């Protein structure tokens, strides 16, 4: 009987309605990536690099155009409840795409390093071996990197839009898997790079397991993985809430890992240091935006009910405080610039968490403003790092940077702009972002967080300024690192990043307005 019932449902199977228009940004990104794989299969080896880079950039631009076309449409939940397309989603997707475009310009750079990009010609060959020299001489390249990163971009677009935990998990893996392996493909310092890939992979898989266990518990609690349904059950509890809280804790661990918040930050410095520098910039900016978007959606849509908020909010506030302390204090002891920027990324995750825990529309708008300005600045900072080179790749040790300001005033000045912005000097974009977040936190009634944040900022100003001092007020090293002359693409990326950092500090109203308008709308 029951079997008959099952077969009758299949007899009336209707193809589901899919809103292709609303999904077009991610569909374009995934489509571009798939096309890139076809290019890999059919295009001649010599032309692949050009085709791949062009294709990726066009794909990102097309996807961005799709986001623009969708802007202003009514917020809705599409694809059978899997994806929420609303103001916040579109703002974050647009941000991710702009950031990715700038990051791809840096990733594709070949002029700084003897006409080769930052990736090993063949991932598995031994660095410095005859075979590697041979493959390099023939001009072989790992052009698969570009479609792989496009897969990652597609995952990032889906991650903050996911309206149920299953889609969120698939998006999480789609954005992470390509990044795990691209981390291991650095041309120089291959050992560090591969170690970073291994650590990132193992810890990432470990944290996914936590995310999943949390998702399973929420499913057990609410009978669904859809965030809206979970929210209904949280508002009108039918079962005991211990299951809910354990589920939220485990799910939170998985998400906080991706965000890079302490005490789940352990992977960040190692991976940021080991990964190819342009990819580090991409990860530091775009992954963070996507992960914060997902965190905001889970907390505000799934658990945005007062009864639930009272439980997770103090915990998240504690996490924010620990994150700021860990980021601020440990950054002081670093001697590698990439590692230092990694701790600075952790510190900034702490500021963002303050905004996330405040859960007002004002705080959400502040987070939305902070994400792009921070993302652009961190890409710019890592792009400068790619220019300062030794024989064996980039010179990342801080002592090598002494006197750089005199030998290469322009890159040093650009880095100084980004670092001063991170330090929160007025008239920079990040100052405005911090100000907006602190203001929202005060309005939401958590002055203690703001006090810790201000203290952490003061501490942070010290290590940012230290780099500036080393660059401008020390004498140049006699055998100092060389400064590569980048191509027009990297120059453009740097100019855009620096311009955005300063311009959005002087005249932030446009982006603030946009963030305010977007933050109010969450499809539920």
């Amino acid at each position, binding site marked *: 009987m029951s079997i008959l019932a099952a077969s009758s449902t299949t007899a009336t199977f209707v193809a589901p309605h899919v809103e292709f228009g609303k999904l077009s940004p991610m569909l374009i990104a995934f489509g571009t990536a798939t096309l890139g794989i076809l290019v890999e299969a059919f295009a001649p080896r010599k032309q692949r690099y050009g085709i791949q880079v062009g294709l990726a950039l066009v794909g990102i631009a097309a996807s961005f155009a799709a986001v623009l076309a969708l802007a202003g449409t009514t917020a809705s939940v599409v694809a059978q409840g899997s994806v929420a397309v609303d103001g916040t989603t579109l703002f974050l997707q647009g941000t991710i795409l702009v950031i990715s475009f700038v990051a791809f310009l840096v990733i594709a750079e070949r002029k700084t390093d003897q006409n080769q990009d930052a990736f090993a010609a063949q991932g598995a060959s031994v660095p410095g*071996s005859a075979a590697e020299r041979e493959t390099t001489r023939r001009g072989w390249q790992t052009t698969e990197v570009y*479609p792989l990163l496009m897969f990652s971009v597609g995952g990032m677009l*889906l991650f903050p839009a996911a309206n149920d935990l299953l889609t969120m998990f698939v998006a999480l893996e789609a954005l992470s898997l390509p990044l795990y392996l691209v981390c291991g493909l650095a041309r120089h310092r291959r050992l560090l790079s591969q170690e970073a890939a291994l650590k990132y992979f193992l810890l990432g898989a470990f944290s996914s397991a936590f995310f999943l266990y949390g998702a399973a518990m929420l499913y057990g609690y609410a009978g669904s993985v859809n965030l809206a349904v979970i929210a209904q059950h949280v508002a009108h509890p039918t079962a005991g809430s211990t299951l809910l809280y354990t589920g939220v804790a485990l799910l939170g661990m998985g998400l906080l890992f991706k965000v890079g918040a302490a005490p789940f930050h352990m992977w960040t410095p190692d991976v940021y240091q080991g990964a190819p520098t342009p990819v580090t910039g991409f990860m530091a900016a775009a992954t963070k935006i996507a992960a914060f978007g997902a965190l905001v959606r889970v907390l505000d849509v799934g658990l945005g009910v007062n009864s639930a908020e009272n439980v997770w909010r103090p915990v998240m506030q504690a996490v924010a405080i620990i994150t700021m302390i860990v980021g601020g204090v440990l950054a002081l002891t670093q001697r590698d610039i990439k590692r230092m920027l990694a701790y600075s990324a952790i510190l900034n995750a702490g500021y963002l968490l303050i905004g996330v825990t405040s859960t007002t529309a004002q705080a959400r708008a502040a987070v939305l403003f902070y994400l792009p300005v921070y993302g652009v600045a961190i890409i710019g900072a890592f792009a400068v790092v790619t220019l300062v080179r030794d024989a064996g790749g980039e010179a990342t040790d801080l002592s090598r940077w002494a006197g750089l300001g005199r030998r290469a005033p322009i890159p040093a000045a650009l880095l100084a702009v980004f670092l001063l912005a991170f330090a929160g000097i007025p008239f920079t974009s990040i100052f405005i972002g911090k100000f907006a977040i602190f203001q929202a936190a005060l309005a939401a009634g958590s002055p203690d967080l703001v006090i810790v944040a201000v203290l952490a900022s003061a501490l942070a100003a010290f290590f940012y300024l230290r780099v500036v001092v080393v660059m401008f007020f020390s004498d140049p090293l006699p055998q100092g690192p060389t400064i590569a002359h980048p191509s027009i693409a990297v120059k453009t990326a740097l100019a855009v990043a620096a311009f955005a950092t300063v311009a959005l500090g002087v005249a932030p109203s446009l982006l603030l307005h946009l963030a305010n308008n977007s933050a109010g709308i969450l499809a539920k």
Partner: protein
Amino acid sequence: MSHGYLSPTGLEIAFVLIGLVTLGSGLLVVTVKNLVHAALWLLVCMGSIAVEYLLLTAELLAWIQVLIYAGAIIVLFLFGLMLTRAPIGPTEELNVRHRWPALIVGLGAAGTLVTVIVQAYQHTWFDPRGAVPLGSGEALGTQLFKYWVLPFEVLSVLLLAALVGAIVLSRRGRDTEEAEA
């Protein structure tokens, strides 16, 4: 029908017995000193979980568990072990020197999770064989393509990315072998 711990049904007895196999083999996976044995115990563990799925009427999943986990993943692991020339015999190298923090975390997690679950579900009984038949391929497929089309498509793209990625990581030129020798 009366429920109780003291009057278990046949299904419960079967479930618990197989559960013990699962836990025992799981424990061996993380403790044995021989990596190849660990992989084989993992096979036992996955197989017993497949049987548990059958008991919970998830037939399709049981077969997928056997095919993918027991079939593909364990074989991958064995290949990995051979290619890394992992120590075939018993060795102390597998474990970290101080295992007590791991033990504390493990026991702590077990204690917390079991408490939470017992608290939430101590008065809940269910009959896996009653109600809606969902374990069949037909029912599951209908649901999958009715409600989860987008994640499914993204998943297929993800598999492509993983495939290409694994090739990128492992590919070597023809002449690399000589250079290494």
